[in-house]
């Protein structure tokens, strides 16, 4: 509780804002990689407090948004099977596949359940041995250790009816892909604190050096984000490009070693398609061969997919920081949280949903004025 008050303190926020204003002499684009940071920024109106020279652009760090359409479709087909109990985190239920979402499958009779931990799904598999229990393992390095642990537990307990539909993605390759694309306008990054809690900060140093960008590891409370922006701007103004840890209460250089060990034992790195972006080499995790029995993709062969994204949806450009959500013609018109064209509008972490929820009837400047 103390943290919550401490890291939302308006007086300290004002001081940080003043320091950012004092430090800024030129325009800079800063990308917050994680959807949790995007929501903190818009929910607390942090972008309204910044100098006009600082542009915050939103990154690909929403696990729901970047889960490829074919994986959602695969989930829908598996979830609809009568013998399957399909377990998922809540916000995956509303993500549209090519036809419908998991809520639609549930309404049509599918056994779809919201769980808060993959270990809950293991418990279901143990309690209901006649059911095929599938957990939708989506997310970045943050959620992957718990999913890996679930696989290990199910394996050790001999639960042959438990499997994971794994769609894990990794942050550093995504940053690499953005910077290597040649179209990026990002000057500095706010890296996601949760990811670094698990993986440490050391893997960002080569990126910062190669692309001459400061990377500041940042938390999710308002003061965390403001401090991250301040440090990023200070580095940019000084011409430095270093990895800086602005989240030391949760992040170390080495990260969480036991979590990394379980990840390495269960998963292996693979190429992975990102919704709206395309395939990024070595950017995902799949289950190792020794856990093939718990791999839902192998267990339920639902065939190959040809999927087509709605033509009007520019979520991919939003995810790469190329446009702001409200620069998309469909935003707020044909694309709303109720009728989302892309996952960035449906996920609670999506940049488009955040803009729609907090900002749709006014620019930051308009809101500043009243």
């Amino acid at each position: 509780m103390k943290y919550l008050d401490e890291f939302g303190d308006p007086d300290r926020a004002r001081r940080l804002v003043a320091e950012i204003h004092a430090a800024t002499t030129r325009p800079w684009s800063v990308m917050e990689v994680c959807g949790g940071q995007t929501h903190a920024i818009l929910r607390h109106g942090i972008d309204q407090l910044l100098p006009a020279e600082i542009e915050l652009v939103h990154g690909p760090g929403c696990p729901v948004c970047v889960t490829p359409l074919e994986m959602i479709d695969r989930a829908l087909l598996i979830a609809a099977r009568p013998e399957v109990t399909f377990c998922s985190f809540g916000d995956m239920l509303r993500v549209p596949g090519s036809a419908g979402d998991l809520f639609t499958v549930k309404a049509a009779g599918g056994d779809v359940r919201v769980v808060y931990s993959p270990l809950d799904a293991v418990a279901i598999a143990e309690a209901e041995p006649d059911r095929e229990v599938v957990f939708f393992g989506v997310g970045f390095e943050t959620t992957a250790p718990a999913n890996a642990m679930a696989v290990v537990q199910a394996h050790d307990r001999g639960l042959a009816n438990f499997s994971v539909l794994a769609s894990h993605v990794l942050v550093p390759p995504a940053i690499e892909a953005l910077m290597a694309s040649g179209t990026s306008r990002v000057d500095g990054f706010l890296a996601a604190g949760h990811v670094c809690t698990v993986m440490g900060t050391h893997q960002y140093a080569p990126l910062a050096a190669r692309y001459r960008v400061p990377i500041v590891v940042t938390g999710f409370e308002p003061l965390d984000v403001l401090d991250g922006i301040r440090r990023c701007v200070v580095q940019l103004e000084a011409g430095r490009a270093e990895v800086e840890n602005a989240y030391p209460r949760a992040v170390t250089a080495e990260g969480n070693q036991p979590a990394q060990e379980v990840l390495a034992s269960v998963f292996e790195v693979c190429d992975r398609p990102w919704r709206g972006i395309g395939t990024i080499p070595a950017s995902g995790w799949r289950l190792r061969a020794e856990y093939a029995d718990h791999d839902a993709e192998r267990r339920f062969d639902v065939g190959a997919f040809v999927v087509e994204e709605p033509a009007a949806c520019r979520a991919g450009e939003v995810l790469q920081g190329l446009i702001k959500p409200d620069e998309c013609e469909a935003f707020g018109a044909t694309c709303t949280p109720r009728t989302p064209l892309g996952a960035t509008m449906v996920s609670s972490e999506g940049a488009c949903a955040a803009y729609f929820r907090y900002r749709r009837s006014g620019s930051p400047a308009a809101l500043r004025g009243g």
Partner: protein
Amino acid sequence: MGESEAGGSGADERLDLEGWTCPLPLRDHDRIVLGHGGGGVLSGELIEHLFLPAFGEAAAAATPTDSAVLELGAVAGGGRLAFTTDSYVVQPLFFPGGDIGDLAVNGTVNDLAMSGAVPIALSTAFVLEEGLELDVLGRVATSMGRAATAAGVQLVTGDTKVVERGHGDGLYVTTAGVGLVPAGVDLRPERIRPGDAVIVSGPIGRHGVAVLSVREGLEFGTQLVSDTAPLNGVVAEMVRAAGPHLHALRDLTRGGLAASLTELAATAGVGISLTESAIPVPEEVRAACGFLGLDPIHVANEGTLVAFVAPEGVDDVLAAMAATDIGRHAVVVGQVRDERPGVVLARTTLGATRIIDRPLGEQLPRIC
């Protein structure tokens, strides 16, 4: 318990289901999904696009309120009757601070109280699942009796149905209630005026978090209990203290403060400005919501109200509320404005501004 099977075929003969299609313009939903019961946008669309057109001339044209106020006419001496109904499908049946029984009584009492009515009597209808333990039903019924006594209402008629095992969550309760609206009392969203203070009667989010904490086996390490309680007592004090300065009331149930305020702003054609730091959110609620990625202003309550009061009545209302157990933490959280009708804005703790949106449907915990 009365029997309420639909008898005769008179009603059926008038129905023309040939060619009738669901007019609900939901792109992805040709069936009911959970979100249709969440009290948000989807619930509203169900009423607007399905129920009202289907009911046709039989549907009242009035704006949606917690309870309908019916003019009794000269035959009954010109009084006004408040009438409401609600169904309760909460899981689990027992949760910290309450159970489905007192929830069903308090919820209906509160819907009556929000129109300023003095609740008189409630009906109780049960849908029981085959196999339900009588002990459970007995505990729920006892709780209902206790809640009704506390609220000063009678349980006067009812119905019992049993469905086969697997066709229900043990126990559903429907309560309907009637109350009398005292002469001179007129609480409606249309009476909300620019300049009105927005008052919340106490801490928000407790019911939703208390239920979540036991429903999903989440351990928040907290003793948080539901706020379920009858509000007719505190409403009577508010009416007495403020008279005509009390313009409108709404109890904050599904969809929380956000759903109530956005709906009222739209109905009344006014803007509402909130001061986020003034909204009373218990630390346990704040922490649990942070953990789950939920916003406390979207979380359900069952014994908390929002009041719209003209400036000249604010001090009297706050004093009257402070003297009650339920309203002792009542506080002004915002103001009604004439600009940006239908929009609820919040001044954030950092001094910026954000839009408060109506939830879509079910609140979905975030992935990380």
